[in-house]
């Protein structure tokens, strides 16, 4: 047994004294070391969806007593089950963030049943009480608020009154963003139209470049997108001297001239909440949703091209969103075939599940599902 020397005695006494001075629960929280795993579907520096997650994971890495392990390029197949099991058995992960939509059913559910003592916080899924295990849960952000603000800025900046949107697949999350963007732009000028191009998959760089070029040829002068990596779109638009609004993460570095603003995820908020709950032993919050106000999403700083009028208009909308006084989907809203989708006088709040089942394009969108 080593002899207790004076130096280590002083150190130990100091630590004891310091923790005694702290409030009890905080000291306990900081004392409990935890291992947290992050799984990404693509590369974590893709200027897009995965980068948004990885940036937040880097902040979590800096928290005291938190060990972060990461794995990227994990497909939405049984491979993610193996990744999760490896994180649990080899690294002793107590909390796992499987960040891609397709991981949830059946993979996360299956592994969560097998390891009831581990927590699984999935991004994007619809966790339901009673149906899914209690040690799993889902969180997601209302990024359509950011896309609405993108639309307001784009509406002010567009000269041709034609906007372009490159979308991957016509699923509700994508349509909600596209519709919010269009509604935002048309709140500035109801003449504005948005042309949408569906590429068919989340990452098809050649198709995305081709789509961007086609939209620009059609006279669209502000582009945005909902694909996994907006890098190609933003670079192509910048080369051709057209403005862009970003998505997922900030692409301002790729387009110093034409980048207006962007809708970004701020996953730090839900991540931090889950890690704190784990460290303090609090039960898991299985269903988390939030928008600008809750800090789940944020907007990129305005680019140099944005006019003062556009800034003022967008800031005003943002301020009322932060005060919960604003609802994007306020009736009457028609689809682009003229049918009423949201009746006059109906106000859909963000938590309304009708919005998570969106299957139409609003008036002003040129395209078909």
């Amino acid at each position, binding site marked *: 047994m080593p002899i207790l020397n004076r130096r280590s005695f002083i150190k130990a006494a100091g630590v004891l004294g310091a923790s005694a001075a702290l409030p009890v629960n905080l000291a306990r929280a900081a004392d409990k070391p935890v291992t947290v795993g992050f799984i990404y579907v693509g590369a974590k520096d*893709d200027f897009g969806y995965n980068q948004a997650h990885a940036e937040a994971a880097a902040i979590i890495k800096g928290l005291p007593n938190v060990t972060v392990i990461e794995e990227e390029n994990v497909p939405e197949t049984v491979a993610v089950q193996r990744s999760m099991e490896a994180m649990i058995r080899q690294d002793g992960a107590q909390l796992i963030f499987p960040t891609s939509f397709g991981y949830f059913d059946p993979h996360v559910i299956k592994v969560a049943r097998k390891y009831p003592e581990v927590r699984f916080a999935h991004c994007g899924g619809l966790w339901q009480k009673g149906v899914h295990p209690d040690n799993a849960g889902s969180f997601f952000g209302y990024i359509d608020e950011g896309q609405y603000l993108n639309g307001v800025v784009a509406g002010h900046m567009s000269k041709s009154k034609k906007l372009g949107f490159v979308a991957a697949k016509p699923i509700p999350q994508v349509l909600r963003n596209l519709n919010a963007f269009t509604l935002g732009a048309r709140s500035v000028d109801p003449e504005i139209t948005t042309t949408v191009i569906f590429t068919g998959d989340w990452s098809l760089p*050649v198709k995305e470049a081709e789509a961007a070029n086609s939209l620009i040829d059609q006279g669209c002068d502000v582009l945005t997108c909902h694909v996994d*990596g907006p890098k190609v779109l933003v670079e192509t638009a910048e080369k051709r001297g057209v403005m862009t609004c970003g998505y997922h993460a900030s692409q301002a570095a790729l387009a110093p001239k034409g980048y207006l603003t962007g809708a970004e995820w701020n996953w730090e908020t839900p991540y931090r909440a889950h890690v704190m709950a784990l460290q303090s032993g609090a039960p898991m919050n299985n269903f988390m949703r939030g928008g600008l106000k809750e800090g789940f999403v944020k907007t990129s700083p305005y680019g140099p091209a944005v006019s003062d009028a556009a800034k003022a208009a967008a800031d005003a909308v943002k301020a009322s969103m932060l005060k919960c006084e604003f609802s994007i989907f306020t009736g009457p809203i028609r689809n682009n075939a003229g049918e009423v989708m949201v009746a006059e006088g109906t106000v859909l709040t963000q938590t309304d599940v009708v919005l998570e089942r969106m299957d139409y394009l609003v008036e002003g969108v040129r395209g078909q599902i």
Partner: protein
Amino acid sequence: MAEIDYSVLLLALLAGAIRVGTPFLFVSLGECLTEKGGRINLGLEGILVVGAMSGYAVAYLTDSAWLGVLAAGCAGGALGAFHGVICSLPRVNDIAFGIALILLGTGLAFFFGKAFIQPQAPSLPSIELGAWSDDARVRSALSVNVLFFIGVALTLLMHWGLRATRWGLVLRLVGDHAQSARALGYRPALVRTLATAGGGFLAGVGGAYLSLYYPGSWNEGLSSGQGLMAVALVIFARWQPLNCLWAALLFGASGAVGPALQAVGISSGYYLFAAMPYALTLLVMYLSCRPNQTLSGAPGELSLNR
């Protein structure tokens, strides 16, 4: 629905055929060269990805896009030579090894390419053929990359070289009948290895076009099967370099047609348009490979035919 502007659509298809078709051209010329020697290299998909990554990396590190193209070609040539040497060993199946090479190539490129996803490399210059026009759309459609012209020149060179030079004749002999070539004192294994290395070089350059010009950045989803489609395209082109050029342009246009149609407002059935290149491949396969019809023009030593 607004009226449809057909001139814009045609312009987009023409521009798309050249922009999207150039990598197809390089890869299919490379595969044509390889198959003329009697080997199939399915690994060109992997080589394309390695070329894209190494081209981007070298262009970024040296700040010269042309050095990047050269590096991409050399990396592709090295992998091609690897395929050629391994397949010269007895009882090695070139198709199986090609598939292994796809996995090896993409794995290597993803591993070494990690550090190059973020930075921006210089891009290749293009020639402004549309400078006479006031219309920005025409100017952008006619801004054609130098590599496309190099590809066209190579097509003509190969077309001439394969029928009029001794080297071309030796290559074709080796590909059609290895025993005769051996009897004449040539070494089929060496010729094939060189042809595969040359094919790899061209496929690597095709990859550099993807990462250095269009779409113009390195990321892991860059290729999305273009290398494999180019292999099918060689069969479509009946092993003729000139046909490779037309086929590459056709495949390029079919890749561009989906976005172009949606942009002008024809948006119904876009999944069908997105599937067009693949449907085209199937159709070509059906037309050229019915049981009562042999593949005319196929080199006799291809493992498809033996």
